[in-house]
């Protein structure tokens, strides 16, 4: 089955992060495929954020590649996830 591994970079005081979280939750219910969302708190795991060169949160990496910085449009995010889900098939 197609898989997507999402890293949702966030921090406790971040304004846009809850919106991204909500978006990812609804998209993982909506899309078929195995979607794993890992929340990465950049104040706890600073090295991971640095490896991606993340300068601000929210930021989303999909299958190990940083795709979005800031809050994306839901359609854009959906498109990016679909691309990943479809590429194995």
């Amino acid at each position, binding site marked *: 089955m197609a898989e997507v591994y999402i890293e949702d970079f966030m921090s406790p005081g971040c304004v846009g992060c809850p919106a991204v979280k909500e978006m990812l939750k609804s998209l993982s219910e909506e899309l078929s495929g195995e979607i794993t969302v890992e929340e990465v708190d950049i104040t706890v795991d*600073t*090295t991971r954020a*640095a490896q991606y*060169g993340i*300068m601000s949160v929210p930021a989303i990496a999909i299958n190990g590649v940083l795709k979005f*910085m800031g809050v994306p449009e839901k359609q854009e995010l959906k498109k990016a996830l679909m691309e990943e889900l479809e590429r194995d098939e």
Partner: protein
Amino acid sequence: MVESSGKLEGVVFVTDNKFSCSEEGQIAIQNAIKDNNLDRIVVVACDPSLHLMTFQRCTKHLGIDPAFVDLIDIRKWTMFGSPSKVDKDQALDNSKRLIEQAVKRMRLKRIIPKITVEVNSSVLVIGGGVAGLEASLDLADKGYKVHLVERLPTIGGKMALLYKVFPTNDCAPCILAPKTAYANIHPNINLLTNSEATNVEGHIGNFSVVVNRNPRYVDEKKCTGCGLCIEKCPAKVVDNEYSRGLGERKAIYIPYDQAIPRKAVIDVQNCLYFQKGVCRLCEKVCPASAIDFKQRPKAIELKVGAIIVATGFDEYNPAQKIEYGYERYGNVITQFQLARLLDIDGPTRGKLLRPTDRKEPRSVVMIQCVGSRDENANGYCSSVCCMYALKHAQIIKEMVLPDTQVYISYIDMRTTGKGFEEYYKRTREIGVNFIHGRPAEVIEDDKTKNLILKVEDPDIGALLRLEVDLVVLSCATIPSKGTKQLAELLGINLDGNGFFKEVHPKLRLVETNVRGIYICGSAQGPKDIPDSIVQAKAAASCVDSELRKGEIQLPEFIVKTKKTN
């Protein structure tokens, strides 16, 4: 962990190795790649900020893209002194979870296309103190165009206020002036005083920066620095910047005699024209017609390849330690204020006069670690206070008032630097009194305005009661105003004390979490001038290594996301 990792989807080969980063360990990884035809590697060991590159390099010639080599840190769960340390079972659970995530990430990851981008060979240096100046001059001499941005109207930073510097007792402005003067005329340095960076976008090689130039209300090109406007200006105000509140200046002023650039600036808060719409005397007397009340803030856009942050420090406000009576008692001052009083270019022209009655003090107590090494203020050691207290004690005893009794009341004297211990020894020899303890509080005598302290000195086993004329507080160095906002603007991290955070506290001291942005001087943590100079040169060297090739390979996502953002 080996057993559980072997069961994860996609894992072909697992082994353990005591020293993966050793030559032997690296050969073992290379052999495993060859024997098992591996194309993706996860190394489970320590901090990737230092060692990821080691593993990427050792596997690269076997055709493995660096993107397919990952290093995850599980040592943090068990390492002595690690802030993330947990018990053994928890550590095992955490590690298994991290390995699972890393394997999954690596399995699903695909090659990240890289784009070669041209780099801009100019550099932004934020902060015109001694560290920022050194970095700017180093880079400018190497041929880079440097934009040096300083918030204040003059460059030189805190060093210009120190009068003398330890351990040589050189005159601070004298050894600083060659640098400020050179920066002012260097063809590769664009000096932007009275300015602040307000927006930063982009990535290494191609940062786009907006700098806001605050108005001086004096045309820098026309002003000759003759000082006639200052002479005629009727508005006298307390000089909180250069004289640290102990002297006066006018509403139009040149911060100090050796100021660079030597151009007047109008302080809007105190200018009669700006506040009441009257006066304009400066405009009338200026022979160069340089006064321009119509100046407005101006935003300029700069394209730079790298950024160095050298925003320095501020002195901790000791009024927060109410027991010492700063701001309540007139004769309690800080070491920075004392430096201004001792300076021949200071408000008293080098005469040590206590603030309340302008009399020479016959006794002075310096209290160390005010706001430093204090869990209720700042837990860290500010590292320079012991030395500047010794310096001021020497100046008082040897140059200004040899008969005055000087006491230094301390927890520990920390004099770790080249020539510093000898300096401490000399201070003891010239008759400065050291009290191994700090007073619980300072009380003012209502009539004489003298200050009374009680200190217990365990070294001599006695409770001392001192009545002195002047108390000087050796205050902590704290991150300069605006550090937090700048960190947010640049996307770089701060440490627990609010200073800019380096990638690694021992090995990568001037790099930040953002490639292309470097830190140096006291902005990174309290330090003295020699250390600031060394760091500034290190930061300049880092910039040079990144920019000198003229182009840089970056992962596509960095280039794209930063552009669309």
